[in-house]
């Protein structure tokens, strides 16, 4: 159908621009937030001079990202004498693509009724008829499973990069990345199992819709209220998946130069870095979807608000839509900022500590959490 095609092209454009934009903005946020945390000013010297004038636009260092990108593009594209040039060439993309793909199943807004939205333009409204679209690129029932399937793919890229670089540092980094990511993948899956037990579905839109409810009379039925421990563990495991400090063992500079991307330069290395920053945004989006009520404000649903007293506030469709889009972006930014705060707070683990933390600390807690959840769900005869 032409209508479906148009809507999904718009969705794709939106999702890609949001992810790329977040990736770019987060490099700036990382610099500036780290600087403010450590009483510094941060990068603020790059500027764009308006042609034929002496007006220099600095904009609190926002152009440093542009300067970085330009520098990476113009650098020499060094290639090591490797026996597997093909694997070496595709490794960055194997890391980069799944990160983008994960976002395909994340709902970034509620249901869209183009007929209602364009009621001021009768021709457009009539063309769309009474079709309804979820604000989500791929409406898959197995949403959460897709997230884990694609999330697990990045480790292949890291292993490929380490293996094909013919460099011992890369190899060691890749081995570390492999064992670390597989360990934490398990923890991440187990934390989410509790949520699946409670909500009874792996469809992310359904999970978000169920979080519009109310528990214990006043609290919004957000995942973080129902499963507070799982929320903390999920965030920890997700950050370990992303291989950032304190879990940046695979690319520990002081030990392994740059880990599995030691032999990468110019924009290939830039793709690794960019994937890391986009993954921050994707983790923030996933965490918001699973634990923070997704695109909804507390007590909000597709038609407006239902406050704890049973009071209803009905909003226009367009208002709800804009509110949901903005809320989701705000939650993503907040959670990204939190991850950057963690990165600037904690020092790196030692390698044995890292794996012990996963297997002897997080894993038993996850299992205990799962058992308690299962018993509680069984005792209450299902949620709601």
């Amino acid at each position: 159908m032409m209508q479906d095609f148009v809507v999904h092209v718009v969705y794709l454009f939106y999702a890609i621009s949001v992810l790329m934009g977040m990736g770019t903005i987060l490099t700036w946020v990382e610099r500036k937030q780290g600087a403010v945390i450590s009483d510094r000013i941060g990068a603020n010297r790059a500027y764009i001079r308006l042609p034929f004038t002496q007006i220099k636009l600095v904009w609190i260092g926002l152009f440093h990202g542009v300067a970085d990108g330009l520098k990476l593009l113009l650098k020499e594209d060094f290639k090591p004498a490797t026996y597997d040039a093909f694997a070496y060439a595709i490794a960055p993309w194997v890391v980069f693509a799944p990160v983008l793909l994960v976002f395909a199943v994340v709902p970034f807004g509620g249901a869209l009724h183009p007929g209602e939205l364009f009621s001021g333009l009768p021709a457009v409204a009539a063309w769309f008829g009474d079709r309804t679209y979820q604000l989500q690129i791929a409406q898959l029932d197995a949403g959460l499973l897709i997230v884990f399937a694609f999330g697990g793919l990045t480790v292949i890229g890291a292993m490929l990069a380490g293996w094909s670089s013919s460099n011992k540092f890369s190899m060691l980094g890749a081995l570390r990345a492999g064992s670390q990511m597989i360990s934490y993948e398990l923890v991440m899956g187990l934390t989410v199992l509790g949520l699946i037990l409670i909500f009874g579905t792996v469809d992310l839109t359904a999970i978000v819709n169920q979080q519009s409810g109310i528990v214990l009379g006043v609290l919004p039925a957000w995942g973080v209220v129902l499963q507070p421990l799982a929320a903390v563990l999920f965030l920890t495991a997700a950050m370990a998946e992303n291989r950032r400090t304190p879990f940046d063992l695979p690319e520990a500079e002081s030990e392994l130069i740059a880990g599995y991307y030691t032999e990468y330069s110019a924009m290939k290395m830039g793709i690794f870095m960019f994937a890391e920053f986009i993954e921050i945004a994707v983790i923030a989006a996933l965490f918001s979807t699973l634990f923070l009520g997704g695109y909804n404000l507390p007590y909000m649903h597709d038609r407006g608000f239902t406050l704890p007293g049973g009071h209803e506030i009905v909003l226009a469709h367009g208002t709800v839509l804009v509110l949901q889009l903005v809320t989701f972006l705000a939650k993503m930014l907040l959670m990204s900022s939190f991850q950057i705060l963690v990165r600037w707070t904690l020092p790196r683990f030692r390698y044995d500590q890292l794996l012990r933390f996963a297997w002897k600390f997080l894993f038993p807690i996850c299992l205990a959490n799962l058992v308690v959840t299962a018993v509680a769900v069984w005792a209450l005869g299902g949620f709601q």
Partner: protein
Amino acid sequence: MSNPRTPQVKRRVRVYWNEPTMGRWESVYLLEVVRGLLITGGVFLRNMWKWCTGRKGAVTAYYPEEMRPDYAKGNRGKHVLVQRPDGSPQCVACNMCATVCPAKVIEIEAAHDPADPAHPKSPARFEIDYSRCIFCGLCVEACPEDAIRMVKDVPDFPGPDRHAMWIGKEELLTWQPARDAAKPYPARPRATAGGPT
């Protein structure tokens, strides 16, 4: 078999005097993580509040635009050439400062004036390269005529071009020695006759 009257001490002996000890709560890693996050988050909010209320939330100085006022009291960061009462430099272009300079930053070109038998030599050119000067003060020590001194100032040369960091005789002579209370001019007469004029 161990003697039951001398029990084996199982306590671990400290190796370092400042060996860290971990309490029960500290060994539960997550709580300490929360404490750390509160500290960094607090610093972040405090600094952001300062920035948002129009103050500076950082200890950094914007260097070329902003100079720190808290240089050390004993800092001597700029050379001056002492003048005779008639305004000519007291320097006799003997090159001793240029010779002793460990960074080799002083360049002197001598001029000859037969009309002045007391001081036939004088510097036609006296230049110092501040991009390499290490401010050791050896030139002041070496000068037999007390012609070069260092004053409480800092060279103000930040810029993109190292060749712009030279200063010449004209700038070195801008200092008016009569105002320096610590070293009066003309110099106090020395015990030995025939001292420097």
